[in-house]
């Protein structure tokens, strides 16, 4: 099992699919955030693998750095929203976030 571009892309695919399913099935808001982190991480694996195995050079790594920074910012904001939601509803279950429902 030598490392090749195709295998790295498959790891990225597994991370992406796990993240999407995590976002879709978890009812805990923090679990959904973890799904988002997995999806972004799968994208990072692809970017870094392309940076190494093709002639695209260092650009892939720089893009993955931006993705990491934006993921950290997103996590901070989303956790602040989750804390606010918990303060108002005394739960973190996203199924109970139905105040805007008509």
């Amino acid at each position, binding site marked *: *099992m*030598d*490392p090749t*571009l*195709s295998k*790295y892309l*498959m*790891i990225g*695919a*597994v*991370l*992406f*699919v*796990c993240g*999407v*399913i995590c976002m*879709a*099935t978890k*009812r805990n808001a*923090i679990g959904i*955030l*973890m799904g988002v*982190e*997995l999806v972004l*991480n799968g994208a*990072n*694996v692809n970017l*870094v*693998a392309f*940076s*190494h*195995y*093709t*002639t695209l*050079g*260092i650009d892939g790594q720089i893009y*993955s*750095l*931006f993705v*990491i920074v*934006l993921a*950290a*910012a997103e996590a*901070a*904001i989303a*956790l*602040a*929203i*989750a*804390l*606010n939601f*918990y*303060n*108002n*509803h*005394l*739960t*973190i*279950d996203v199924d*109970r976030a139905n105040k805007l429902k008509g």
Partner: protein
Amino acid sequence: MSGQTLFFTLFALGACLGAIAVVVSQSVIRMAFWLIISLGSTAALFFLVDADFVGAVQLMIYVGGTLVLLVFAVMLTSSGPYLKIDTSPGETVLAGMVALLFLFMVVVTQLGVDWDESNERIATAVGIDREVAAFDSGSEGNTLRTIGMSLLGLRPDLGVATASKPHTGYLLPFEIVSVHLLVVLIGASYLARAKRRRDS
């Protein structure tokens, strides 16, 4: 079996199984633990493809920063009623089937592309000098200087820039991200400040 193959297999399994365990486990703290395993293995995979700076940043920001933030959020929100939040078994089965179909689709698509051939086409279309632009394995484990200069708008890895073919650095995205981080910092502290509960 060479060392690289061994470590690649180990960390690939760590990343994939960790991600699957994040989906499967129901307790949030266990999910955070498996996420640490998965993200740490991914950082090791980055080290294996000579992306040492990205791997280090992944370890520091994701595992050291974001995960700690997530664990704090779990601690702040897990007390009180509705503590156990489970996914129903029917949903789990359905999600598993959808996941397998989705994974099958992505993997088949990915295997259907000849990456070497498309790489050649992109290199000729963009006009990248392959010898210069290819990831330099001679400077293996030394991406820090190149990345830092690229973030300042210089591209030492692309050779000499000419007026007809200037190089594009990343100074503007870097500045935008800096201001974005400042805004996020202010916004997060504004959103998360202590407030009186409305409905208690």
